[in-house]
């Protein structure tokens, strides 16, 4: 089903059935059954935590190969801000753009440029004051899916503006049509993705019917080929004319706090890393952050620079981005007309995903809850994960849903074995006594 396409997938060969990913999944979407991990599609948010923590590299992100760009007559690369900080001693944005062209692209359209438009639109919307506060950023697709599943209450706080990736894709296609004279469908819009969540968001976009991105190529695949392309170019590099598309505002979107800072709101916060994001959402739900105007949330530590498909350490990348933007103007892209262009706005609402509730019928759910709690009280509460479920409560839930049995608990099993052993022993003693008597 299209609704449940996921970039994050499991390589069953490499999976050893340890419970590292099971324990870390923020939506309890993974179980180990029959010695292998299984991802529940309905619950997965493609945050990539399991890819990050798997010691056996058994989790992968499905992306498009770079070679797939050949399928298009005219190719446009969409590099996100995080890509620009991947290279050591590389403080020339022009060379990175030239390197991308050398890889076979006809144009480069920076996502950071679109991010500046999104920032401009966000400021306009905040000023109009019609949004429900605190306004939640809509840029991180893993966070949006997390809200759909775990915090449906907060969907109405989400900023109804497309992500910089989508805005960039739309504008890049229009520009490419003008420059090439080709038809829109002959142009390939290629996003260089730092994370699996973006890949999934292209297949199942938020707030719009269809994504304008044609291909999502992994930052990890682009990294080495772009590096050698740049090394070749650097030999005769004179420093081409400045074709800067973005200022520091756009580049700062690569790290946590960049988007929030660009809102110029009086009171805002930025949280990064999925656990911190969850804590902030919990507090928002309890009305604790009512005095904030804007809340930026990134599933990855340090922001998009921390995406699992990036090569460099995210904190090093943040430092490099700061060097890169030091001499740039504040912003190169602003909405000049009095109204927000339609291309930036969502055309439909995002709906909650009821995948955590026990049943669609609350009364049936209450019946199941009673059963669940009865089972849970029998379990030892050690949350050891040996059964393959993330906690004792999750195992009880799995049993109630019919996906597991009590025998999966090794402690209950040990109790049973102990009981059998002691009854065998007493039988033995009895028969010995009888024999001797």
């Amino acid at each position, binding site marked *: 089903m299209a609704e449940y396409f996921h970039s994050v997938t499991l390589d069953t060969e490499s999976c050893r059935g340890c419970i590292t990913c099971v324990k870390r999944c923020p939506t309890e979407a993974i179980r180990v059954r029959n010695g292998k991990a299984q991802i529940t599609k309905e619950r997965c948010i493609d945050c990539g935590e399991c890819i990050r923590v798997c010691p056996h590299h058994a989790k992968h992100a499905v992306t498009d190969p770079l070679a797939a760009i050949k399928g298009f007559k005219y190719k446009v690369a969409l590099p996100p801000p995080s890509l620009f900080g991947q290279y050591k001693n590389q403080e020339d944005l022009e060379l990175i753009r030239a390197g991308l062209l050398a890889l076979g692209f006809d144009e480069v359209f920076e996502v950071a440029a679109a991010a500046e438009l999104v920032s401009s639109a966000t400021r306009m919307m905040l000023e109009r004051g019609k949004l429900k506060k605190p306004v939640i950023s809509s840029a991180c697709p893993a966070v949006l899916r997390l809200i759909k599943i775990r915090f449906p*209450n907060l969907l109405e706080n989400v900023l109804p503006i497309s992500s910089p990736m989508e805005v960039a894709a739309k504008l890049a296609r229009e520009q490419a049509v003008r420059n090439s004279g080709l038809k829109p469908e002959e142009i390939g819009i290629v996003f260089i993705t730092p994370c699996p969540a973006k890949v999934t968001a292209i297949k199942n976009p938020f707030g719009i019917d269809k994504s304008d991105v044609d291909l999502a190529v992994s930052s990890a695949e682009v990294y080495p080929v772009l590096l050698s392309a740049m090394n070749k170019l650097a030999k005769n590099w004179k420093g081409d004319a400045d074709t800067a598309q973005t200022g520091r505002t756009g580049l700062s979107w690569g790290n946590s706090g960049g988007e929030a800072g660009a809102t110029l709101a009086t009171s805002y916060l930025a949280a990064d890393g999925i656990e911190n994001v969850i804590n902030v959402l919990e507090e928002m739900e309890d009305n604790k952050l009512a005095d904030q105007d804007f809340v930026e949330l990134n599933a990855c530590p340090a922001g998009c620079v921390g995406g699992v498909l990036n090569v460099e350490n995210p904190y090093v990348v943040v430092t490099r981005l700061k060097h890169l933007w030091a001499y740039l103007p504040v912003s190169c892209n602003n909405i000049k007309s009095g109204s927000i262009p339609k291309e930036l706005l969502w055309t439909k609402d995002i709906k909650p995903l009821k995948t955590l*509730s026990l049943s669609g019928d*609350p*009364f049936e*759910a*209450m*019946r199941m809850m*009673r059963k669940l709690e009865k089972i849970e009280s029998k379990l030892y509460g050690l949350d050891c994960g040996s059964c393959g479920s993330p906690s004792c409560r999750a195992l009880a839930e799995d049993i109630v849903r019919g996906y597991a049995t009590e025998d999966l608990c090794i402690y209950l099993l040990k109790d049973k074995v102990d009981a059998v052993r002691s009854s065998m022993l007493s039988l033995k003693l009895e028969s010995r006594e009888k024999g001797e008597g």
Partner: protein
Amino acid sequence: MSENTLHYHFVVSGDDFTQAGTASSAVKKTLKQLGFDPRIVRKMAISLYEGEINMVIHGGGGEIDVFIDAEQIAAVLTDHGPGIPDIDLAMQEGWSTASEQVRGLGFGAGMGLPNMKKYADELLIDSEVGKGTTVRLTVFLSGK
């Protein structure tokens, strides 16, 4: 209480701000798992959280009992703290008797009881000075 009622019991510590909100957070998780309408979950989550914080700030801790059945979610919060001398006054927005220390932590803005009244469908307060306070919060599943 019928046999079909779900019952949860929590003990709230009186001096540990880091633990404040534990009970309301657990209840919220259960309500979500029961698949209740997000608006109902929100009503209960906010009012119970405020009530729990009040127990920590003013009541010296206490106990919370939550009952869920086919009609309603009810929470009974009992403390043995100083009691509320004038409930009408306490219900006013911004009225607070919280200490400077508590305010320094970002609590005690005088919005606790008003928020409970705003978000719960029914709020009953029974208080005796020197003995303690019992608060009963109800959210109706039918939306009232």
